[in-house]
């Protein structure tokens, strides 16, 4: 029950899950108990298309430090792309 705010955002793109590639429409980001990762809490991201059912999801559970480094990596990659990443 020790769960916190869910930050959801609409996204456009694709993800690959057990059934293959699919278009994703939402990303839910929350810091909560993981299902699998061996930590008490993790930064969880669900890339999903809720309209296609709960199984249409790619999930990651990251340690807080890993999540922060991932944010930096994403920002760095986008900045390096310059005008192409608009």
């Amino acid at each position: 029950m020790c769960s916190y705010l869910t930050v959801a955002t609409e996204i456009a793109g694709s993800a690959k899950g057990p059934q293959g590639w699919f278009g994703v429409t939402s990303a839910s980001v929350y810091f909560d108990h993981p299902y699998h990762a061996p930590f008490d809490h993790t930064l969880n991201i669900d890339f999903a298309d809720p309209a296609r059912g709960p199984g249409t999801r790619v999930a990651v559970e990251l340690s807080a430090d890993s999540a922060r480094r991932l944010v930096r990596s994403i920002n760095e990659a986008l900045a390096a792309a310059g005008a192409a990443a608009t």
Partner: protein
Amino acid sequence: MPAPEEALSAGNITFTGYEDAEVNAYQALPAGPGPFPGVLVIHHLPGWDSTTKEITRRFAAEGYNAICPNLYARQGLDVDPDDAAAATREAGGIPDDQFVGDADAAVKVLRALPTANGKVGVIGYCSGGRHSFLTAISVPVDAAVDCYGAFVTGTVPDGFPLKVTPLVDRTPDLVCPLLGLFGNDDQFPNPEQVDELEAALKAAGKTYEFHRYDGAGHAFFSVERPAYRPEAAVDGWQRIFEWYGRYLAGS
């Protein structure tokens, strides 16, 4: 001959839950003719996962008919439990009325088993701790265990993703003795919230027993997480079996 604790059978069943929905459940039964008490095992927020099923088997190994319903079955009986948990979380959790209906039906399944002794206990962890308390104020059971359930008391923070409300005002409705196991480093529930529950139980004249562990926080029974605290967990398991031995034995 195998040692008694090795002799059990386990597998999935389905039963009819709240509003006639088909609900799947993991069931573990001791070998032998019984009679055995029953235990309703309630999973935590991350869902109908393998560690909760291990707990269910442990009760069978100790001589209890045990059943762990999939509280997120409305997402689909064939949906992976982790996907069902994520979708249910996104939807704000499960309504209390739905939970109570499912719990009531699961208790009836336990009582109807041919090896049942007629007594049924309930236990839950984390969000399941609140659900265990909710069962014990709503469904005829004979003993309850609340393992660090949040929001039985206290105030739900603004922006909290689950649509939950505290239950403490309904403490007078408690139908059975309550065992509470808590970590003193926990924030949900924190020690003051455990105090509030204890005061309500005293005021209502209910039978209860609380054990609070120093050096332990939330989820100290979770063997696969850093929160695991062997001393608290080992003592806690002993308290659980003493509690059920006291209130669920006989027929």
